[in-house]
Protein backbone atom coordinates (compact mmCIF):
# COMPACT_ATOMS: atom_id res chain seq x y z
CA UNK A 1 0.00 0.00 0.00
CA UNK A 2 2.74 2.36 0.96
CA UNK A 3 4.61 1.57 -2.22
CA UNK A 4 1.48 2.11 -4.26
CA UNK A 5 0.89 5.52 -2.75
CA UNK A 6 4.47 6.55 -3.36
CA UNK A 7 4.15 5.71 -7.01
CA UNK A 8 1.08 7.88 -7.34
CA UNK A 9 2.84 10.69 -5.55
CA UNK A 10 5.75 10.47 -7.96
CA UNK A 11 3.46 10.82 -10.93
CA UNK A 12 1.42 13.54 -9.29
CA UNK A 13 4.32 15.84 -8.55
CA UNK A 14 6.13 14.90 -11.73
CA UNK A 15 9.53 14.08 -10.25
CA UNK A 16 12.20 13.44 -12.87
CA UNK A 17 13.14 9.78 -13.30
CA UNK A 18 16.82 10.48 -13.76
CA UNK A 19 18.78 11.06 -10.62
CA UNK A 20 20.90 13.84 -9.63
CA UNK A 21 24.34 14.41 -11.11
CA UNK A 22 23.98 16.73 -14.08
CA UNK A 23 20.20 16.92 -13.70
CA UNK A 24 18.01 19.64 -12.28
CA UNK A 25 17.87 20.22 -8.57
CA UNK A 26 14.35 18.76 -8.58
CA UNK A 27 15.93 15.35 -9.13
CA UNK A 28 17.39 15.47 -5.61
CA UNK A 29 13.92 14.68 -4.33
CA UNK A 30 13.96 11.49 -6.40
CA UNK A 31 17.19 10.41 -4.73
CA UNK A 32 15.84 11.34 -1.32
CA UNK A 33 12.78 9.20 -1.89
CA UNK A 34 14.72 6.28 -3.35
CA UNK A 35 17.29 6.32 -0.55
CA UNK A 36 14.65 7.04 2.11
CA UNK A 37 16.68 9.80 3.70
CA UNK A 38 16.00 13.08 5.49
CA UNK A 39 17.03 16.26 3.72
CA UNK A 40 18.03 19.76 4.67
CA UNK A 41 19.36 22.51 2.46
CA UNK A 42 22.30 24.77 3.17
CA UNK A 43 22.95 27.87 1.07
CA UNK A 44 26.51 28.73 0.12
CA UNK A 45 27.51 31.89 -1.73
CA UNK A 46 26.70 30.74 -5.24
CA UNK A 47 25.44 27.21 -4.82
CA UNK A 48 23.26 25.15 -2.49
CA UNK A 49 23.97 21.88 -0.68
CA UNK A 50 21.22 19.33 -0.18
CA UNK A 51 22.31 17.29 2.85
CA UNK A 52 20.61 13.91 3.14
CA UNK A 53 21.03 11.63 6.16
CA UNK A 54 19.58 8.38 7.47
CA UNK A 55 19.61 6.38 10.69
CA UNK A 56 22.40 4.09 9.45
CA UNK A 57 24.94 6.89 9.47
CA UNK A 58 24.91 7.51 5.73
CA UNK A 59 25.36 11.10 4.53
CA UNK A 60 24.83 12.11 0.91
CA UNK A 61 25.42 15.69 -0.19
CA UNK A 62 24.23 17.05 -3.51
CA UNK A 63 25.58 20.36 -4.75
CA UNK A 64 23.44 22.52 -7.03
CA UNK A 65 24.24 25.70 -8.97
CA UNK A 66 22.18 28.84 -8.54
CA UNK A 67 20.71 27.91 -11.91
CA UNK A 68 19.46 24.63 -10.47
CA UNK A 69 21.87 22.06 -11.93
CA UNK A 70 23.43 19.40 -9.71
CA UNK A 71 27.17 19.75 -10.35
CA UNK A 72 28.50 17.43 -7.65
CA UNK A 73 27.60 14.71 -5.15
CA UNK A 74 29.48 13.26 -2.20
CA UNK A 75 28.81 10.40 0.17
CA UNK A 76 30.01 8.73 3.35
CA UNK A 77 28.54 5.74 5.14
CA UNK A 78 28.70 2.07 6.06
CA UNK A 79 27.69 0.95 2.55
CA UNK A 80 28.31 2.27 -0.94
CA UNK A 81 25.19 4.17 -2.03
CA UNK A 82 23.52 3.01 -5.24
CA UNK A 83 25.72 4.90 -7.67
CA UNK A 84 23.53 3.97 -10.61
CA UNK A 85 20.92 6.17 -8.93
CA UNK A 86 23.23 8.88 -7.67
CA UNK A 87 25.29 9.26 -10.86
CA UNK A 88 22.27 8.79 -13.09
CA UNK A 89 23.15 8.95 -16.77
CA UNK A 90 26.84 9.24 -15.88
CA UNK A 91 26.93 5.85 -14.13
CA UNK A 92 27.49 3.94 -17.36
CA UNK A 93 30.50 6.09 -18.25
CA UNK A 94 32.01 5.57 -14.81
CA UNK A 95 31.35 1.84 -14.80
CA UNK A 96 32.70 1.29 -18.30
CA UNK A 97 35.92 3.07 -17.44
CA UNK A 98 36.51 1.43 -14.08
CA UNK A 99 35.86 -2.02 -15.52
CA UNK A 100 37.98 -1.42 -18.62
CA UNK A 101 41.05 -0.46 -16.58
CA UNK A 102 43.51 -3.30 -16.55
CA UNK A 103 42.94 -5.66 -13.67
CA UNK A 104 46.48 -6.96 -14.03
CA UNK A 105 48.41 -5.65 -11.05
CA UNK A 106 45.50 -3.40 -10.19
CA UNK A 107 43.16 -5.78 -8.47
CA UNK A 108 41.58 -4.03 -5.56
CA UNK A 109 41.58 -0.37 -4.74
CA UNK A 110 39.31 2.60 -4.80
CA UNK A 111 37.63 3.47 -8.07
CA UNK A 112 39.03 6.79 -9.27
CA UNK A 113 38.11 7.78 -12.80
CA UNK A 114 38.57 10.90 -14.89
CA UNK A 115 36.57 10.90 -18.06
CA UNK A 116 36.24 14.22 -19.83
CA UNK A 117 34.31 16.49 -17.48
CA UNK A 118 33.25 13.62 -15.22
CA UNK A 119 35.35 12.91 -12.12
CA UNK A 120 34.39 10.02 -9.81
CA UNK A 121 36.38 9.11 -6.69
CA UNK A 122 34.94 6.16 -4.77
CA UNK A 123 36.93 4.67 -1.89
CA UNK A 124 36.89 3.25 1.62
CA UNK A 125 36.17 -0.14 3.09
CA UNK A 126 33.28 -1.95 4.80
CA UNK A 127 31.68 0.30 7.43
CA UNK A 128 33.24 3.44 5.98
CA UNK A 129 32.84 4.17 2.29
CA UNK A 130 33.56 7.67 1.05
CA UNK A 131 33.48 9.28 -2.33
CA UNK A 132 32.43 12.10 -4.56
CA UNK A 133 31.60 12.79 -8.18
CA UNK A 134 31.42 16.06 -10.03
CA UNK A 135 31.22 17.67 -13.44
CA UNK A 136 34.12 20.04 -14.00
CA UNK A 137 32.26 22.03 -16.64
CA UNK A 138 29.35 22.67 -14.27
CA UNK A 139 31.31 24.02 -11.29
CA UNK A 140 30.00 27.50 -10.43
CA UNK A 141 32.41 30.39 -10.93
CA UNK A 142 34.92 30.53 -8.09
CA UNK A 143 34.02 27.08 -6.76
CA UNK A 144 36.61 24.28 -6.87
CA UNK A 145 36.28 20.59 -6.25
CA UNK A 146 37.46 21.28 -2.68
CA UNK A 147 33.90 22.38 -1.94
CA UNK A 148 32.55 18.91 -2.71
CA UNK A 149 33.13 17.11 0.57
Amino acid at each position, binding site marked *: MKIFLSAILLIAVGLPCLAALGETVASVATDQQKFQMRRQIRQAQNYSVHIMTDDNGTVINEFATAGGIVFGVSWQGPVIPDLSQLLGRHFGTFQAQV*LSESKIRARRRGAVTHNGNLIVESGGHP*RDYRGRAYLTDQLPSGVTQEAIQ
Partner: protein
Amino acid sequence: MKNRMLAGPLVAALCTLAGCGGGGSSSGGGVFTPPPVVINNVQPVVVNAGPSNQEADVLYTSVTICVPGTSTCQTIPNIQVDTGSSGLRLLNSQVTLVLPNSTDISGNVIGNCVQFLDTSYIWGPVALADVKFADEVASSLPVQLGAQWGRPTSFPAAPTVCSSGGTAVTTPSTLGANGILGVGNFIQDCGQGCASTSSKYYYSCTTTACTQAAVPVAKQLTNPVAKFPQDNNGLLITLPALPDAGQVSASGSMIFGIGTQTNNALGAARVQTISSSTGTFSTTFSGKTYPGSFIDSGSNGYFFLDAATTGLPICSNAAPFYCPTTQKSFTAITTGINSVANTVAFNIANLNSLPAANSAFNNIGGSQPNFFDWGLPFFFGKSVFVALELSSTPGGSGPYWAY
Protein backbone atom coordinates in the same frame (compact mmCIF):
# COMPACT_ATOMS: atom_id res chain seq x y z
CA MET B 1 31.92 -12.66 23.44
CA LYS B 2 32.35 -13.01 27.16
CA ASN B 3 34.92 -15.77 26.75
CA ARG B 4 36.84 -13.74 24.26
CA MET B 5 37.01 -10.74 26.52
CA LEU B 6 38.31 -12.85 29.34
CA ALA B 7 40.78 -14.85 27.32
CA GLY B 8 43.57 -12.28 27.26
CA PRO B 9 43.88 -11.51 30.96
CA LEU B 10 43.14 -15.08 31.91
CA VAL B 11 45.99 -16.44 29.87
CA ALA B 12 48.31 -13.70 31.05
CA ALA B 13 47.47 -14.59 34.63
CA LEU B 14 48.02 -18.25 33.99
CA CYS B 15 51.37 -17.53 32.43
CA THR B 16 52.43 -15.91 35.67
CA LEU B 17 51.15 -18.78 37.72
CA ALA B 18 52.37 -21.63 35.63
CA GLY B 19 55.43 -20.07 34.09
CA CYS B 20 53.86 -20.47 30.69
CA GLY B 21 55.34 -23.85 30.03
CA GLY B 22 54.60 -26.27 32.80
CA GLY B 23 51.67 -28.47 33.50
CA GLY B 24 48.70 -27.64 35.65
CA SER B 25 49.25 -25.94 38.93
CA SER B 26 47.50 -25.94 42.22
CA SER B 27 46.69 -22.51 43.57
CA GLY B 28 46.35 -21.65 47.24
CA GLY B 29 42.89 -23.00 47.77
CA GLY B 30 43.69 -26.33 46.20
CA VAL B 31 41.71 -25.45 43.10
CA PHE B 32 43.24 -27.01 40.02
CA THR B 33 44.09 -24.46 37.38
CA PRO B 34 44.36 -25.87 33.87
CA PRO B 35 47.51 -24.93 31.97
CA PRO B 36 47.35 -22.57 29.02
CA VAL B 37 46.97 -24.78 26.03
CA VAL B 38 49.79 -24.17 23.59
CA ILE B 39 48.63 -24.99 20.11
CA ASN B 40 49.94 -24.07 16.70
CA ASN B 41 48.67 -20.57 16.03
CA VAL B 42 50.82 -19.87 12.96
CA GLN B 43 49.19 -19.95 9.54
CA PRO B 44 51.55 -19.52 6.56
CA VAL B 45 50.77 -16.72 4.12
CA VAL B 46 52.40 -15.84 0.82
CA VAL B 47 52.42 -13.03 -1.72
CA ASN B 48 52.75 -14.43 -5.24
CA ALA B 49 51.30 -14.27 -8.72
CA GLY B 50 48.19 -16.12 -7.57
CA PRO B 51 45.84 -18.35 -9.54
CA SER B 52 45.82 -15.97 -12.51
CA ASN B 53 49.65 -15.95 -12.51
CA GLN B 54 49.60 -12.18 -12.92
CA GLU B 55 48.72 -10.63 -9.56
CA ALA B 56 50.78 -8.05 -7.69
CA ASP B 57 50.69 -7.60 -3.92
CA VAL B 58 47.88 -10.01 -3.14
CA LEU B 59 48.33 -11.92 0.12
CA TYR B 60 47.17 -15.54 0.08
CA THR B 61 46.62 -18.36 2.51
CA SER B 62 44.73 -21.65 2.46
CA VAL B 63 41.71 -22.62 4.50
CA THR B 64 40.41 -25.99 5.64
CA ILE B 65 36.64 -26.20 5.85
CA CYS B 66 34.64 -29.11 7.24
CA VAL B 67 30.99 -30.03 7.42
CA PRO B 68 30.22 -28.89 11.00
CA GLY B 69 31.01 -31.48 13.63
CA THR B 70 32.44 -33.98 11.16
CA SER B 71 35.81 -34.93 9.71
CA THR B 72 34.51 -34.40 6.19
CA CYS B 73 36.84 -31.64 5.15
CA GLN B 74 38.48 -29.92 2.24
CA THR B 75 41.41 -27.52 1.93
CA ILE B 76 41.09 -24.60 -0.49
CA PRO B 77 44.25 -22.70 -1.52
CA ASN B 78 44.64 -19.12 -2.77
CA ILE B 79 42.34 -17.41 -0.30
CA GLN B 80 43.05 -13.67 -0.14
CA VAL B 81 43.86 -12.38 3.37
CA ASP B 82 41.99 -9.09 3.85
CA THR B 83 42.35 -6.94 6.95
CA GLY B 84 39.88 -4.50 5.40
CA SER B 85 36.84 -6.75 5.85
CA SER B 86 35.50 -9.41 8.19
CA GLY B 87 34.21 -12.91 7.47
CA LEU B 88 35.02 -15.71 5.04
CA ARG B 89 33.71 -15.66 1.48
CA LEU B 90 34.34 -18.65 -0.79
CA LEU B 91 33.56 -18.95 -4.46
CA ASN B 92 31.17 -21.86 -4.53
CA SER B 93 32.84 -23.34 -7.60
CA GLN B 94 35.80 -24.17 -5.35
CA VAL B 95 33.71 -25.84 -2.64
CA THR B 96 33.20 -29.58 -3.08
CA LEU B 97 31.63 -30.15 0.36
CA VAL B 98 27.88 -29.94 0.80
CA LEU B 99 27.56 -27.47 3.65
CA PRO B 100 24.33 -26.80 5.55
CA ASN B 101 22.66 -23.49 4.77
CA SER B 102 22.23 -20.93 7.49
CA THR B 103 18.56 -20.09 7.94
CA ASP B 104 16.65 -17.24 9.51
CA ILE B 105 13.78 -17.25 11.98
CA SER B 106 11.34 -18.08 9.16
CA GLY B 107 13.41 -21.03 8.02
CA ASN B 108 14.48 -19.19 4.89
CA VAL B 109 18.07 -19.37 3.70
CA ILE B 110 20.08 -16.24 4.52
CA GLY B 111 21.56 -14.48 1.47
CA ASN B 112 24.59 -12.19 1.62
CA CYS B 113 25.90 -9.48 -0.67
CA VAL B 114 29.16 -7.58 -0.76
CA GLN B 115 29.70 -4.72 -3.18
CA PHE B 116 33.13 -3.63 -4.38
CA LEU B 117 34.17 -0.15 -5.38
CA ASP B 118 34.49 -1.05 -9.06
CA THR B 119 30.72 -1.79 -9.03
CA SER B 120 31.24 -5.58 -9.01
CA TYR B 121 29.71 -7.69 -6.23
CA ILE B 122 29.64 -11.18 -4.73
CA TRP B 123 26.24 -12.67 -4.09
CA GLY B 124 25.33 -16.01 -2.53
CA PRO B 125 23.85 -17.91 0.42
CA VAL B 126 25.28 -18.11 3.91
CA ALA B 127 26.35 -21.63 4.91
CA LEU B 128 27.88 -23.08 8.07
CA ALA B 129 31.32 -24.69 8.21
CA ASP B 130 34.01 -25.58 10.73
CA VAL B 131 36.87 -23.38 9.57
CA LYS B 132 40.48 -24.24 10.40
CA PHE B 133 43.75 -22.35 10.21
CA ALA B 134 46.84 -24.00 11.75
CA ASP B 135 45.39 -25.69 14.88
CA GLU B 136 42.74 -23.01 15.40
CA VAL B 137 39.12 -23.91 14.66
CA ALA B 138 36.07 -21.68 14.32
CA SER B 139 33.14 -24.06 14.71
CA SER B 140 29.97 -23.70 12.71
CA LEU B 141 31.08 -20.37 11.26
CA PRO B 142 28.67 -18.51 8.96
CA VAL B 143 30.47 -18.18 5.60
CA GLN B 144 29.30 -16.89 2.24
CA LEU B 145 29.19 -19.26 -0.74
CA GLY B 146 29.68 -16.76 -3.51
CA ALA B 147 28.12 -17.22 -6.93
CA GLN B 148 26.16 -20.34 -6.16
CA TRP B 149 24.49 -20.88 -9.49
CA GLY B 150 22.49 -24.05 -9.13
CA ARG B 151 24.83 -26.22 -7.11
CA PRO B 152 24.27 -28.09 -4.95
CA THR B 153 20.83 -26.49 -4.83
CA SER B 154 19.47 -23.56 -6.75
CA PHE B 155 19.59 -20.11 -5.27
CA PRO B 156 17.83 -16.98 -6.50
CA ALA B 157 19.73 -14.40 -8.53
CA ALA B 158 20.98 -11.25 -6.82
CA PRO B 159 18.28 -8.69 -6.04
CA THR B 160 18.78 -5.38 -7.82
CA VAL B 161 19.63 -3.65 -4.55
CA CYS B 162 22.71 -5.91 -4.46
CA SER B 163 23.66 -5.79 -8.12
CA SER B 164 23.00 -2.02 -8.34
CA GLY B 165 23.84 -2.03 -12.03
CA GLY B 166 27.17 -3.81 -11.41
CA THR B 167 28.61 -7.13 -12.51
CA ALA B 168 28.79 -10.31 -10.44
CA VAL B 169 32.17 -11.76 -9.44
CA THR B 170 31.78 -15.46 -10.16
CA THR B 171 35.20 -16.89 -11.03
CA PRO B 172 38.66 -17.09 -9.43
CA SER B 173 40.14 -15.25 -12.40
CA THR B 174 37.75 -12.32 -11.85
CA LEU B 175 38.33 -12.27 -8.11
CA GLY B 176 42.05 -13.08 -8.31
CA ALA B 177 41.50 -15.64 -5.57
CA ASN B 178 39.29 -18.56 -4.60
CA GLY B 179 37.83 -16.59 -1.74
CA ILE B 180 38.38 -13.71 0.66
CA LEU B 181 39.31 -14.17 4.32
CA GLY B 182 38.24 -11.04 6.21
CA VAL B 183 40.35 -10.74 9.36
CA GLY B 184 39.84 -7.05 10.06
CA ASN B 185 39.12 -5.32 13.37
CA PHE B 186 35.40 -6.01 13.30
CA ILE B 187 33.73 -9.26 14.35
CA GLN B 188 31.01 -9.30 11.68
CA ASP B 189 30.93 -8.11 8.09
CA CYS B 190 28.18 -5.64 8.95
CA GLY B 191 27.37 -5.72 12.67
CA GLN B 192 24.56 -4.18 14.70
CA GLY B 193 23.38 -1.95 11.86
CA CYS B 194 22.32 -5.02 9.86
CA ALA B 195 20.71 -6.62 12.91
CA SER B 196 18.38 -3.72 13.66
CA THR B 197 17.28 -2.84 10.11
CA SER B 198 17.32 -4.41 6.68
CA SER B 199 20.41 -3.64 4.64
CA LYS B 200 22.18 -4.27 1.36
CA TYR B 201 24.16 -7.04 3.08
CA TYR B 202 21.46 -9.50 4.18
CA TYR B 203 18.43 -11.19 2.61
CA SER B 204 15.78 -13.76 3.45
CA CYS B 205 15.52 -16.19 0.56
CA THR B 206 12.86 -18.58 -0.57
CA THR B 207 13.66 -20.91 -3.46
CA THR B 208 12.52 -18.24 -5.90
CA ALA B 209 13.32 -14.81 -4.47
CA CYS B 210 15.32 -12.93 -1.85
CA THR B 211 14.18 -9.88 0.08
CA GLN B 212 16.24 -7.55 2.27
CA ALA B 213 16.07 -8.54 5.94
CA ALA B 214 17.58 -7.74 9.30
CA VAL B 215 19.81 -10.60 10.51
CA PRO B 216 21.08 -11.04 14.09
CA VAL B 217 24.83 -10.50 14.51
CA ALA B 218 25.30 -14.17 15.49
CA LYS B 219 24.11 -15.19 12.03
CA GLN B 220 26.17 -12.64 10.10
CA LEU B 221 29.46 -13.47 8.39
CA THR B 222 31.92 -13.62 11.25
CA ASN B 223 35.65 -13.06 11.48
CA PRO B 224 36.86 -16.62 12.26
CA VAL B 225 39.42 -15.35 14.76
CA ALA B 226 36.59 -14.16 17.01
CA LYS B 227 35.18 -17.69 17.11
CA PHE B 228 38.40 -19.51 18.03
CA PRO B 229 38.23 -20.95 21.56
CA GLN B 230 41.58 -19.25 22.29
CA ASP B 231 43.98 -16.80 20.64
CA ASN B 232 40.80 -14.97 19.71
CA ASN B 233 41.49 -11.33 20.59
CA GLY B 234 43.26 -10.54 17.33
CA LEU B 235 46.15 -11.55 15.14
CA LEU B 236 49.37 -10.30 13.65
CA ILE B 237 50.67 -10.51 10.12
CA THR B 238 54.40 -10.57 9.56
CA LEU B 239 56.01 -10.28 6.14
CA PRO B 240 59.71 -9.86 5.22
CA ALA B 241 61.35 -6.63 4.07
CA LEU B 242 61.79 -6.44 0.29
CA PRO B 243 64.35 -4.97 -2.11
CA ASP B 244 63.23 -2.06 -4.32
CA ALA B 245 62.79 -4.36 -7.31
CA GLY B 246 60.44 -6.59 -5.38
CA GLN B 247 60.49 -10.37 -5.35
CA VAL B 248 58.84 -13.20 -7.24
CA SER B 249 57.13 -14.12 -3.97
CA ALA B 250 57.32 -13.35 -0.27
CA SER B 251 56.40 -15.75 2.51
CA GLY B 252 55.24 -14.76 5.97
CA SER B 253 52.94 -15.69 8.82
CA MET B 254 49.52 -14.91 10.18
CA ILE B 255 49.78 -15.52 13.92
CA PHE B 256 46.58 -15.70 15.95
CA GLY B 257 46.12 -14.03 19.33
CA ILE B 258 47.78 -10.97 20.83
CA GLY B 259 49.84 -11.62 23.96
CA THR B 260 48.33 -15.07 24.35
CA GLN B 261 51.42 -17.12 23.47
CA THR B 262 55.16 -16.53 23.35
CA ASN B 263 55.06 -15.80 19.61
CA ASN B 264 52.46 -13.02 19.61
CA ALA B 265 53.64 -10.50 22.21
CA LEU B 266 53.20 -6.85 21.29
CA GLY B 267 56.80 -6.05 22.22
CA ALA B 268 57.69 -2.54 21.06
CA ALA B 269 54.70 -2.23 18.74
CA ARG B 270 52.79 1.01 19.31
CA VAL B 271 49.07 0.65 19.87
CA GLN B 272 46.89 3.02 17.80
CA THR B 273 43.20 2.77 18.57
CA ILE B 274 40.66 3.34 15.79
CA SER B 275 37.06 4.46 15.53
CA SER B 276 34.80 1.70 16.79
CA SER B 277 32.21 2.63 14.17
CA THR B 278 34.28 3.26 11.03
CA GLY B 279 37.60 1.54 11.83
CA THR B 280 39.55 4.61 10.73
CA PHE B 281 42.35 6.80 12.06
CA SER B 282 44.13 9.95 10.83
CA THR B 283 47.13 10.34 8.55
CA THR B 284 49.10 13.58 8.36
CA PHE B 285 50.98 14.31 5.14
CA SER B 286 52.78 17.58 4.28
CA GLY B 287 51.18 19.27 7.25
CA LYS B 288 47.61 18.35 6.39
CA THR B 289 45.61 15.76 8.31
CA TYR B 290 43.37 13.25 6.57
CA PRO B 291 40.83 11.42 8.73
CA GLY B 292 39.23 8.31 7.32
CA SER B 293 42.52 6.47 6.81
CA PHE B 294 42.82 2.71 7.23
CA ILE B 295 45.15 -0.28 6.85
CA ASP B 296 44.05 -2.89 4.34
CA SER B 297 46.03 -5.96 3.29
CA GLY B 298 43.36 -6.41 0.61
CA SER B 299 44.42 -3.25 -1.25
CA ASN B 300 47.36 -3.96 -3.50
CA GLY B 301 49.13 -0.64 -3.13
CA TYR B 302 49.46 2.52 -1.09
CA PHE B 303 46.43 4.48 -2.25
CA PHE B 304 46.69 8.08 -1.17
CA LEU B 305 45.78 11.60 -2.25
CA ASP B 306 46.19 12.71 -5.85
CA ALA B 307 48.76 13.71 -8.46
CA ALA B 308 48.57 17.41 -7.58
CA THR B 309 49.16 16.82 -3.87
CA THR B 310 51.85 14.16 -4.18
CA GLY B 311 53.62 15.41 -7.32
CA LEU B 312 53.39 11.87 -8.71
CA PRO B 313 52.10 11.40 -12.26
CA ILE B 314 49.41 8.82 -12.92
CA CYS B 315 50.40 5.87 -15.14
CA SER B 316 49.05 6.46 -18.63
CA ASN B 317 48.30 2.75 -19.01
CA ALA B 318 47.28 1.85 -15.47
CA ALA B 319 45.33 4.65 -13.81
CA PRO B 320 45.09 5.41 -10.95
CA PHE B 321 48.52 3.93 -10.14
CA TYR B 322 51.39 6.37 -9.83
CA CYS B 323 54.27 6.21 -12.34
CA PRO B 324 57.08 8.59 -11.25
CA THR B 325 60.15 8.60 -13.51
CA THR B 326 62.26 7.59 -10.53
CA GLN B 327 61.29 6.13 -7.18
CA LYS B 328 60.12 8.78 -4.71
CA SER B 329 60.34 8.67 -0.91
CA PHE B 330 57.68 9.98 1.46
CA THR B 331 56.90 10.10 5.13
CA ALA B 332 53.52 10.40 6.78
CA ILE B 333 52.36 10.33 10.38
CA THR B 334 49.57 8.01 11.42
CA THR B 335 47.67 8.96 14.57
CA GLY B 336 45.26 6.75 16.49
CA ILE B 337 42.14 7.91 18.30
CA ASN B 338 44.32 7.56 21.43
CA SER B 339 46.73 10.18 19.96
CA VAL B 340 49.56 7.63 19.67
CA ALA B 341 51.50 8.42 16.50
CA ASN B 342 53.80 6.48 14.20
CA THR B 343 55.98 7.94 11.46
CA VAL B 344 55.73 5.82 8.34
CA ALA B 345 58.37 6.06 5.61
CA PHE B 346 57.46 4.64 2.23
CA ASN B 347 58.50 4.69 -1.41
CA ILE B 348 56.56 4.86 -4.65
CA ALA B 349 58.19 3.39 -7.74
CA ASN B 350 57.05 3.39 -11.36
CA LEU B 351 54.67 0.46 -11.76
CA ASN B 352 55.80 0.00 -15.35
CA SER B 353 59.51 -0.11 -14.48
CA LEU B 354 59.27 -2.91 -11.93
CA PRO B 355 60.24 -6.43 -13.08
CA ALA B 356 57.23 -8.11 -14.66
CA ALA B 357 58.29 -11.44 -13.20
CA ASN B 358 57.89 -10.16 -9.63
CA SER B 359 54.68 -10.12 -7.63
CA ALA B 360 55.67 -8.79 -4.19
CA PHE B 361 56.44 -5.06 -4.00
CA ASN B 362 56.78 -2.59 -1.14
CA ASN B 363 56.62 0.46 -3.39
CA ILE B 364 53.53 0.51 -5.58
CA GLY B 365 50.63 2.86 -5.09
CA GLY B 366 48.06 5.09 -6.66
CA SER B 367 45.60 7.91 -6.26
CA GLN B 368 42.79 7.97 -3.70
CA PRO B 369 41.83 11.55 -2.96
CA ASN B 370 41.22 12.76 0.59
CA PHE B 371 42.59 9.85 2.62
CA PHE B 372 45.20 7.11 2.96
CA ASP B 373 44.52 3.45 2.24
CA TRP B 374 47.62 1.74 3.64
CA GLY B 375 47.59 -1.37 1.48
CA LEU B 376 49.71 -4.50 1.38
CA PRO B 377 53.05 -2.70 0.68
CA PHE B 378 52.71 -1.26 4.20
CA PHE B 379 53.01 -4.76 5.71
CA PHE B 380 56.46 -5.69 4.37
CA GLY B 381 59.24 -5.59 6.94
CA LYS B 382 56.76 -5.26 9.81
CA SER B 383 54.69 -7.19 12.28
CA VAL B 384 51.25 -5.60 12.11
CA PHE B 385 48.81 -6.42 14.93
CA VAL B 386 45.04 -6.34 14.35
CA ALA B 387 43.09 -6.18 17.63
CA LEU B 388 39.41 -7.07 17.37
CA GLU B 389 36.63 -4.82 18.58
CA LEU B 390 35.48 -5.53 22.17
CA SER B 391 38.58 -7.64 22.81
CA SER B 392 40.94 -7.44 25.74
CA THR B 393 44.69 -7.58 25.09
CA PRO B 394 47.89 -6.72 26.99
CA GLY B 395 47.91 -3.49 24.94
CA GLY B 396 44.40 -2.50 26.00
CA SER B 397 40.97 -2.97 24.45
CA GLY B 398 40.35 -3.30 20.75
CA PRO B 399 39.76 -2.23 18.13
CA TYR B 400 43.29 -1.08 17.38
CA TRP B 401 46.30 -1.48 15.12
CA ALA B 402 49.80 -1.90 16.52
CA TYR B 403 53.13 -1.87 14.72
